[in-house]
């Protein structure tokens, strides 16, 4: 029991913290949590991930509204509505509505999760290798069309990611295949995942906010505007948009909130209190909804479709976890029951923290942000060192991390998400093509 309680609390606190912190996205959160995850059974790792990411979405909007910074793409709608909110002193109302919307939008996906998983499992077509290839091709296409870079840069990045994923001594049954190891044993394990993600994604993101200064007085936060009703239908609409967008590879969670925001703009196009709150609540509801359904392809097919989930997959794969099969039981309840129970409890904690204690947390963060950002990079470096020590390759891991972080910071205009996606799908893409060559060859 203590394991579950600790997972629940640590994931919720870590998630809330990461969401509030500018620059620390869910990928950085998962990287810094790696030492903990390596010591948990796979089912608890999945629960940790679901709770932490969910919690970070709760508090993410707080960082966007209060500090005006976009930790992740999901915060864009909150950032877009921020000027109106600040001008009209609507921070407290906005935080309250987004917190209620977040909790409401968790309930539907949580209840839908089990039937969705069962539906996926009953349809054997989805388990087929050719279907998996189809999903992978869609991921590659989404990466190529990734808006932050040009298509040619995306192509280069995805190809580089697939290439990097193949470096090392790869097991091919009885024979081991060397690929760009230059006969150096330290290269046999390949370029470590933690260095690729930490160096190219997390460090540049944190670096962007290393000298950030707050531009809003947190004393205004507790002046709530009365008379505004919670936009229930906007929240439900956003939750549903998030539910389905979460299933889209690579970009599902990112576009969920933006799509819901755009959809709600059709219903509430005005620039008044009611419309702004409706759009914001819908976007934040979608945000939370998508974070739950994004788990479905992972739990059924073992395919991670967003970077933070890829880190989770890389950990649970080392623990004999097989997609769609979980025999883990505790107090007579299975994995999915515990996932739903803990998600509901965690959502309630998040609501309380995001709404009740937000003023004091905001004040504390404002005063300590720089230090926390620096500490996070340090913790990440230590996590890399720890991961390296697990396979007797500390120097190699740390060197890769430092080198890739320098590349990430130097090329700050390039978004390396397509490279990371290519790195993660590289192995499974090549294996899938080989299997299909046997089936249809």
């Amino acid at each position, binding site marked *: 029991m203590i394991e579950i309680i600790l997972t629940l609390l640590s994931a919720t606190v870590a998630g809330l913290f990461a969401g509030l912190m500018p620059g620390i996205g869910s990928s950085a959160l998962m990287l810094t949590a790696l030492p903990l995850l390596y010591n948990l059974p796979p089912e608890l790792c999945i629960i940790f991930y679901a709770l932490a990411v969910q919690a970070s979405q709760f508090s993410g909007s707080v960082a966007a509204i209060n500090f005006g910074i976009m930790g992740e793409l999901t915060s864009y709608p909150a950032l877009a509505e921020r000027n109106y909110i600040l001008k009209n002193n609507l921070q407290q109302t906005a935080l309250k509505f987004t917190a209620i919307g977040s909790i409401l939008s968790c309930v539907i996906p949580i209840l839908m999760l089990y039937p969705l998983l069962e539906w996926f499992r009953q349809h*054997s*077509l*989805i*388990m*087929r*290798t050719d*279907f998996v290839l189809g999903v992978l091709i869609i991921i590659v296409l989404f990466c190529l069309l990734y808006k932050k870079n040009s298509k040619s840069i995306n192509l280069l990045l995805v190809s580089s990611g697939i290439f990097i994923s193949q470096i*090392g*001594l790869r*097991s*091919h*049954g*009885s*024979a*081991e295949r*060397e690929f760009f190891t230059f006969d150096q*044993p*330290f290269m*046999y*394990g390949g370029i470590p995942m933690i260095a690729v993600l930490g160096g190219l994604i997390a460090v540049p993101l944190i670096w962007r906010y290393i000298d950030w200064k707050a531009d809003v007085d947190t004393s205004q936060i507790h002046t709530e505007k009365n008379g505004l009703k919670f936009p229930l239908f906007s929240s439900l609409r956003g939750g549903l948009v998030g539910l389905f967008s979460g299933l889209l590879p690579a970009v599902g969670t990112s576009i969920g909130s933006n799509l819901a925001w755009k959809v709600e703009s059709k219903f509430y196009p005005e620039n008044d209190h009611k419309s702004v709150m409706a759009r914001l609540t819908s976007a934040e509801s979608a945000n939370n909804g998508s974070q739950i359904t994004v788990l479905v392809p992972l739990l059924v097919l*073992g395919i991670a479709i967003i970077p933070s989930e890829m880190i989770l997959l890389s950990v649970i*794969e*080392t*623990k*004999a*976890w*097989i*997609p*769609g*099969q979980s025999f883990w039981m505790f107090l007579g309840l299975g994995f999915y029951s515990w996932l739903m129970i803990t998600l509901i409890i965690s959502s309630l904690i998040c609501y309380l923290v995001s709404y009740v204690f937000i003023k004091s947390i905001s004040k504390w963060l404002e005063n300590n942000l720089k230090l926390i950002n620096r500490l996070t990079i340090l913790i990440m470096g230590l996590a890399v060192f720890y991961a390296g020590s*697990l*396979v*007797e*390759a500390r120097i190699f891991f740390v060197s890769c991390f430092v080198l890739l972080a320098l590349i990430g910071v130097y090329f700050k205009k390039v978004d390396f998400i397509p490279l990371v996606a290519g790195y993660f799908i590289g192995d499974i893409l090549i*294996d899938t093509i*080989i*299997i299909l060559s*046997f*089936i249809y060859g």
Partner: protein
Amino acid sequence: MVDSLKQLKGEKMKKVIMTMLMFLFTVQTYAVEKDISFYVGHSNGGGSAGMQTIIQQELKNKGWKVNFKVIGNCGKVINLMETSDKPILAGWAADWNTSVDNVCYNPPTKKNFMRIFMNTPRLLCGPYDNLAFDLVPGQRYRVGVNQGQNHDVFLNSLGEKLNVDFKVIEYKNSGFIKRAMQAKEIDAWYTTAGLPQHAAKTQKCLYGTIAKEWQGVVPLNTLISTVNVNTSWIGFLLVNDKVDGALKRMLKQDLEDIITSEDYRGRQAAGGFGDFITKDSTDAQISLIEDTTEAFKK
């Protein structure tokens, strides 16, 4: 009388010498620090790494100080064994030794070999929940196998013998094969993963790389006489040259005690790998490994 006195003195002398030798041996044994690095070349999470994790825990229970690491890469482990000045124990697989050109080539010798810790037969099994599965002559069957282990050579011979056509499809690992079976992408599999399902009667296995009939599974060596019938999964423990003398003797004895214990065998069977651990001599075990290695060659 004098003779019997001399005999008595001789016996006493023998006892004294034996006691002194035992004392010296004990002193020497305790003087050697039971300290070892235990590296796993298999991926974390697989059956091999799982059983090696149990072994390291049992070694700790026996007073060993074990630096246990799942390196997950046999090339790195072999490099550590060759370059480190510390005593190292490592788990190895018979099929890694099929070619001297392989980075992980490290055949067992009397000097480096400890013992076999896993021996799991490969079974030819039908789909889940189809207990009526049988191979019908003249039919074609898509069979899932682990990649790169040349199972097509043996399955083609078996197909000829049984008058069926096997279309061999190579998958990365047993997880992929299980998913393919669920998706009905394959009609049968030839892997080490069918033991628990067959024993639980949720899947029917017909043939296996076993020495004698087991729960209705026919030994393949009764059908085909080539070396390729021996493709069981055999895992064994090796040491580097820093493990010698008293340290090696103690380690070998403790490993023997752990691996042949009821507890270890029970845990191996519960993990779905069966109870096929041999108590044969070191020579016989090395010979079994060599035969198995041969079976994976074309």
